[in-house]
């Protein structure tokens, strides 16, 4: 499986994703600087997390205008898998590859902790290694992770099965989160969505920060299965 990671000025999770890909799928990704306008021929393009352009104006707004993004949109339309993690998800909504928008967290603060997610479908290419309905743990670390979409878009996302990850209920009920901390307030607890064709995934939690059992922190290793799913279909 050949992979590429797009690096924007201000991305800060690009190295972490490269480490995760090398560890889980033995694929050494090529790191593509945002000023490039051509991507190598790959099975998957990853838009890294971080604070591209410092999240100035809106998270992902300026990065969406980088030369490389026209190429990413072309590849996505050709069916190449595209994975946007955290800031990558924000960039995908700003380019229109994914519907909706990521807004300031409901409690206005940056939230960094491990949250529980529900895997809505064990669907290729991103989640075939999970079981449908499986509860997994993944760290989140963001200040603008509140997913918003208008009612029609939400109905389509639900109807077409484009919601891949949701925050587990007790984690996201407003005001009474896991232990009294409000979650980001995403509508319908949405944490990660697919485009219609299912080859583009954007999610706010960080799988590349929880793939390594050895480190044995609280974050666990449930992120590994997302990367392993990629090898099962790419």
């Amino acid at each position, binding site marked *: 499986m050949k992979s590429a990671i797009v690096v924007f000025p201000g991305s800060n999770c690009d190295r972490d994703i490269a480490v995760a890909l090398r560890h889980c799928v033995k694929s050494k990704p090529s790191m593509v600087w945002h000023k490039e306008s051509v991507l190598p021929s790959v099975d998957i393009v990853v838009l890294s997390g971080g604070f591209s352009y410092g999240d100035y*104006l809106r998270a992902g707004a300026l990065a969406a205008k980088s030369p490389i993004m026209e190429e990413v949109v072309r590849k996505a339309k050709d069916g190449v898998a595209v994975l946007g993690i955290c800031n990558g998800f924000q960039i995908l909504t700003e380019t229109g590859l994914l519907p*909706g*928008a990521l*807004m300031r*967290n*409901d409690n206005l603060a940056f939230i960094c902790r491990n949250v529980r997610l529900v895997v809505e479908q064990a669907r290729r290419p991103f989640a075939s290694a999970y079981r449908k309905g499986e509860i997994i743990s993944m760290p989140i670390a963001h200040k603008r992770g509140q997913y*918003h979409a208008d009612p029609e878009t939400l109905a389509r996302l639900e109807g077409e099965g484009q919601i891949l990850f949701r925050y587990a209920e007790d984690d996201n009920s407003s005001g009474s989160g896991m232990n009294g901390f409000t979650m980001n307030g995403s509508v319908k607890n949405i944490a990660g969505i697919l485009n219609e064709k299912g080859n583009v995934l954007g999610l706010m939690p960080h799988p590349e920060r929880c793939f390594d059992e050895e480190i044995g922190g609280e974050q666990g290793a449930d992120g590994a299965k997302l990367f392993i799913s990629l090898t099962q279909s790419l």
Partner: protein
Amino acid sequence: TDRLQFAVKITLKEGVRDPQGRAIQELLARMGYDKIADVRQGKHIKISFHDADPESAREAVNAMCRDFLANPVIEDYRVSIDDA
């Protein structure tokens, strides 16, 4: 300076949740400001041109807003001459 200045007012669309506006409203209530129906926070961007003709400058600012200054999914924008 005879600079031409435009003000771009970017506001959240109806129905889009505004946690910042809500937080301000709650704080105002706690500080005793009553009769407040609603608070909405948006962005104000001042763009100044040097020796550009007003018409093409205004057109450029509108193009910028359509291009990326405002996010059509959640925001509306209005362009006006900035009365600095």
